[in-house]
């Protein structure tokens, strides 16, 4: 599988493409972090994040591969590790999702609230909403991935799942929590 074929697989939503990349470039990327004061666990974490970044970018319709994938991953790993070193130097201990330094506190809190509600959803609902709102798949694509009869079924399921999520969010927290 060459680089272009891998990107095409990612664009189709084929997760096995990043499995392949993970194994293929593991040693090179981990070595990079190890040589810059990281541990293998940290290196794994950074490399996995870099692959997620590649996945997110490659899923965008306008994404065009302008270098070798290994080059791309290498530079993303470097940048992520640089940020991690900076973060480490600022805070000796930090846990949880990093939403970026520039994100206002109320926005972080709001995302944490929503995240909790998403986690309470069933796996199927969670997946449908991810496919629709995050991966931006069409209803036909969601139906195919989820094994539904057709796009209409996917649309109905998505509607119900979204309703369930909104209900969870709004019954647990008052709308004023979300007002700026």
């Amino acid at each position, binding site marked *: 599988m060459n680089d272009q074929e891998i990107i095409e697989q990612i664009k189709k939503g084929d997760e096995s493409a990043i499995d392949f990349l993970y194994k293929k470039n593991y040693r090179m990327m981990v070595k990079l972090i190890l040589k810059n004061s990281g541990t*293998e666990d940290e290196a794994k974490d950074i490399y996995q994040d870099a692959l997620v970044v590649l996945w997110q970018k490659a899923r965008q319709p306008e994404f065009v591969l302008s270098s070798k994938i290994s080059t791309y991953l290498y530079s993303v790993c470097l940048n992520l590790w640089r940020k991690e070193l900076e973060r480490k130097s600022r805070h000796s201990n930090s846990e949880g999702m990093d939403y970026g330094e520039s994100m206002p506190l109320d926005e972080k809190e709001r995302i944490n609230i929503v995240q909790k509600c998403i986690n309470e959803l069933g796996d199927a609902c969670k997946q449908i909403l991810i496919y629709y709102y995050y991966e931006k798949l069409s209803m036909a694509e969601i139906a195919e991935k989820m094994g539904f009869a057709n796009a209409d079924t996917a649309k109905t399921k998505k509607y119900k799942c979204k309703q369930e999520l909104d209900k969870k969010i709004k019954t647990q927290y008052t709308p004023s929590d979300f007002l700026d």
Partner: protein
Amino acid sequence: MELQEKIDQYLLNQLSPSDKAKFEELIAGDVHVKSEVALQQSVVTALGNTRSLQLKSRLQNIPVSMSSTTNAIRMKWLGAAAVGTVAAGLIIFLFAGQDKTAEQTTPLTTAVSSETTTPSKETTVAVATEDQTSEAKVQQPVVVKKEKTTAIALEKSNIKAFDNSASFNETENTGISTPNSDATDIPTNTLFSETNNKLSNLSVTVDNSNLKDKSYQFTGPKLTLFGDFNSKPYELLELNNKGQKTLFLSYNNEYYELVWGQMKKTPLKKVTHKETIEKLKVINP
């Protein structure tokens, strides 16, 4: 309900530019709409985080480790070294038959570079497979008389080299160093100097857009083979004869000579010189 649909379309970037502008006006003038959009944006962000965790969890379950990779590579090296010993033995046998003054062979257990083990009138036979991902270079030097032959065979899937064409200027400011490894220690200039004529640095790609003609081209440490090279396995062989390294491609029972650093796309020429073919057959029967 209509508002929810509109928000969905807005967040999924499905609105036309004019509708988007109108909707943004509405957001700016209505606190309720603004808070609802912010909430739905948080839903998308949180779903993205969930997705990222799903993907990371998937990768986390793939068994990989530096040590296991190294062990696998070591096994490959050991296999290669064994093949090398056999090939070296064959060469010794052949030359011993021709030259009765040949001394008893002395296999060394430590890895010694062929460049440093060439005392006068003695030459070294070393066989090794090259893999960009390996740390150690294992060679099996054997002392013989008068002939120096280094055969380096690569399997198609083992050839990997990092293309460091990316600019990592940012790292210079933060003190992060790129690893000084065989994986990244590749020149970015267009000239491929003699010192870099190492198969360990070589990355090979096949361009089979034109299956009729076979040719090749070096771009820095990258070798591109043009033609139908995917249907059968190929091997790169390096013959080190009388101090000169020559690179050959073995494909479909034919040998082709490659000129290191040939920047121009050059047709592959079959080796016809009988003696050279015989030597190549010794290391790549």
